[in-house]
């Protein structure tokens, strides 16, 4: 089966080379048959990588310990569930997984657009196949997951060695979220290849019109949605598994995932200026290029060992390959831009400083400054070592100091931007749209301050959160009021109708609301507290309004590990709220330990209990307790962000009705109702 997997990968490599060669020939000769052949080769890559993935899954499930990768990341006692997660737990498997996800995207694009954009798609196919080829080179020649263990036998012949058992999966990865977090994040990273391919193809092929930007925006939203979900799942995994009481440590690997998310977010906003006004063509193309480049840069940082990180892959020899690939992409992008920059010329004009257009410019400025701050902080240790010979650390305090003000300004723009009109916003409109919301925000601050809400940033965050929430609520309210008056619906049905009439606009508001909840959750960090003590059975610890009583601590063997577990009763005002079971696990296969945090989570706060081990002097369990306010709002906000993005991807209801009416018999088709001028004027903004 390992030979089968290797062969499938080799064949995929050949198909990718063929897709590039024949694709270029199709572009030059304009022969549809060549184009079709290149497309089918591109789609075959997906089938072949799927076969390779299938064979690796089979090798894991059948405990084939003659394969170095299986030995390094699995063992017989590992639950089947985690044998899947073991696929992407190491360098080689995760690169194959990356190729596989990319190939699924490529297949979807080539298949969906097989009869569309005949001038553009050959270029798209060549760009996509080129990116695939790079990863296939790594899969086949540099970091193959199908390497078998061997030794020279008598007569100099190579003999395959089969180990009795494997080294097991890293304990930190033996957590349910690790089965979905990497696929989500990788789907985000790989998904940004599609907008890149369309942007570069449109530039290379000088594709007329703005159609390609609509396609690019849709695929960016899909990738952005996966990236958002992946980042949040990763944060939740860090919170629930690493046991340090937090969810975001500004680790280089975390930063690597945040940077393309920031530029992708900037693009999703500025693309509207190109769609509506034909502006910012050059800027948008470079935002798409930068997002893809940051994906590759992030992968390079994670996998090359250039920066220190708790969850980076070990130092390996693939770093130079990524540097070469990055250099090649930068060169291609610059050359394509220089050659065809006149194609991107746009007639940028602005009526007023106070307009939707200028708010997008500021939004892009803030997002890019955040990205520069994260990138410079992540790379500064490398730079300082290079210049001074001494490595300087850049940890969470630096990133927090720099990024909190940036984030708050962004939150402010989240409230202001969507309500400014295109071209020009009058003073009357400003007063009408923002007056009550601003007063509401200030009122919330005035209520909270005397109650002791004194942390400056947390207070500003509260005021802005209320302000943005009210602006969003007001938008829904105004639109729904018109629909309610016209159609006689109740308010909530009217909100539903309104949303489905313009999913992109109202889905965007839902995403903004989710971001507000995330910001509220982040503001809670200012009020975190923690306590650590030895807890013999019967002893008590007080934290906040909670009293923790240690009931017992036990040791028990499980399928894949041995667990030391404390039983902690959590009381609030003398009443039991929950029994908590924090654990420390020891995995004999790789002789590593891991924690399993116990969390009592409410909307108000998380009671987060860690079994920190036994005291060396007394052998009593040491319990570390954190009281983290508002953490649940982050996960709730994240879910709303994802739902809002999905909503924004749905087609508008009106458009669906029109399409149905056209395909149904005239008598059966409902006559489209006229939409009042008032309603249209509300829906005009986006």
């Amino acid at each position, binding site marked *: 089966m390992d030979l089968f997997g290797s062969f499938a990968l080799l064949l995929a490599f050949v198909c990718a080379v063929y897709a590039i060669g024949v694709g270029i020939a199709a572009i030059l000769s304009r022969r549809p048959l060549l184009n079709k052949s290149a497309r089918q080769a591109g789609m075959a890559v997906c089938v072949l990588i799927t076969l390779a993935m299938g064979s690796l899954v089979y090798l894991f499930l059948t405990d084939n310990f003659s394969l170095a990768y299986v030995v390094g990341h699995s063992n017989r006692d590992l639950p089947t569930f985690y044998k899947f997660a073991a696929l992407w737990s190491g360098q080689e498997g995760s690169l194959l997984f990356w190729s596989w996800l990319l190939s699924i995207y490529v297949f979807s694009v080539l298949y969906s657009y097989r009869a569309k954009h005949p001038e553009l798609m050959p270029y798209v196919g060549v760009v996509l196949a080129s990116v695939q080829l790079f990863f296939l080179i790594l899969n086949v020649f540099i970091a193959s997951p199908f390497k078998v263990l061997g030794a020279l036998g008598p007569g100099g012949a190579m003999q395959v060695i089969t180990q009795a058992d494997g080294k097991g999966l890293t304990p930190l990865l033996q957590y349910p979220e690790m089965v979905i977090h990497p696929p989500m994040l990788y789907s985000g990273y790989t998904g940004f290849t599609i907008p890149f391919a369309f942007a570069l193809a449109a530039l290379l092929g000088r594709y007329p019109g703005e159609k390609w930007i609509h396609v690019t925006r849709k695929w960016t939203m899909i990738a952005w949605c996966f990236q958002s979900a992946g980042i949040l799942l990763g944060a939740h995994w860090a919170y629930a598994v690493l046991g340090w009481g937090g969810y975001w440590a500004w680790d280089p690997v975390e930063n690597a995932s945040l940077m393309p998310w920031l530029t992708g977010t900037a693009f999703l906003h500025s693309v509207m200026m190109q769609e509506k006004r034909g502006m910012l063509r050059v800027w948008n193309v470079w935002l798409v290029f930068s997002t893809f480049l940051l994906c590759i840069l992030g992968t390079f940082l994670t996998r090359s060992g250039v920066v220190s990180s708790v969850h980076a892959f070990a130092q390996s020899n693939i770093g130079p390959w990524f540097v070469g690939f990055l250099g090649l992409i930068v060169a291609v992008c610059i050359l394509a831009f220089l050659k065809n920059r006149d194609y991107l010329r746009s007639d940028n004009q602005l009526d007023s400083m106070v307009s939707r257009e200028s708010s997008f410019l500021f939004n892009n400025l803030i997002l890019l400054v955040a990205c520069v701050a994260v990138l410079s902080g992540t790379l500064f240790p490398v730079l300082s070592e290079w210049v001074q010979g001494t490595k300087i650390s850049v940890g969470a305090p630096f990133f927090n100091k720099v990024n909190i003000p940036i984030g708050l300004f962004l939150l402010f723009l989240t409230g202001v931007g969507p309500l400014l009109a295109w071209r020009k916003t009058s003073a009357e409109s400003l007063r009408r749209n923002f007056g009550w919301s601003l007063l509401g925000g200030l009122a919330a601050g005035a209520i*909270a301050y005397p109650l002791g809400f004194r942390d400056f940033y947390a207070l500003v965050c509260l005021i802005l959160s209320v302000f943005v929430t009210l602006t969003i609520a007001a938008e829904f309210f105004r639109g729904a009021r018109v629909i309610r008056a016209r159609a006689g619906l109740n308010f909530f049905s009217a909100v539903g109708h309104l949303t489905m009439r313009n999913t992109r606009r109202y889905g965007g508001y839902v995403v903004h609301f989710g971001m507000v909840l995330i910001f509220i959750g982040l503001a809670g960090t200012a009020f975190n507290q923690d306590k650590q003590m030895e807890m013999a059975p019967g002893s008590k610890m007080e934290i906040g309004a909670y009293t923790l009583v240690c009931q017992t601590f036990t040791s028990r063997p499980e399928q894949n590990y041995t667990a030391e577990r404390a039983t902690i009763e959590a009381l609030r005002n003398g009443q039991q709220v929950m029994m908590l079971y924090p654990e420390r696990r020891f995995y004999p296969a790789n002789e590593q330990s891991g924690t399993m945090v116990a969390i009592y989570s409410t909307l108000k706060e998380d009671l987060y209990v860690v079994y920190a081990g036994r005291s060396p002097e007394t052998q009593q369990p040491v319990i570390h307790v954190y009281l983290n306010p508002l953490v649940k709002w982050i996960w709730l906000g994240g879910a709303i962000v994802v739902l809002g993005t999905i909503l924004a991807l749905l087609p508008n209801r009106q458009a669906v009705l029109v399409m149905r009416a056209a395909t149904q018999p005239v008598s059966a088709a409902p006559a489209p109702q006229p939409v009042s001028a008032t309603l249209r004027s509300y829906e005009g903004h986006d």
Partner: protein
Amino acid sequence: MKGTTKLLPLALVVVLALALSHLAWLPAYAQQTERAKNIGKRLLCMCNCNQILTACNHVGCSTSAAMLKKLDQVVARNEPEDLTVQSFIQEWGERVLAEPPAKGFNRLAWFIPGGAFALGLVLVIVVIAHWRRRMTLAPAGPSVSPDALSRARLQADQETEE
């Protein structure tokens, strides 16, 4: 229903303000522990995890255990905070600091985000001013009545609708 919807913004303000204001009543730590924690937040664990010393919770991380022990001992001597931090720098070098010291070449780390913001802001303002000038220079059409202008705005709204 009309009354309910009118009260919606007020209800949102009250709910959000109350949800967050409970945070004010959280108690403080004992002074000594707080001091050690504050100093610990200025330092990184030297096990290469890139985490704050007091947040490093790797199972079996001997580096953070030894560093925390040292921190407790130094804090117990009640020395000034900077002197405590200095003793860690002597042992592990400046890379033990959680953020770059604002001196010499390391100032660059602090300058880059602010510099990028200032540069970007100037660029945005220049771009906006340039685009507005273009708008002013564009040949003006025949004068239009307010009615025609509002009809045109409505039409523009409809055309830019999704």
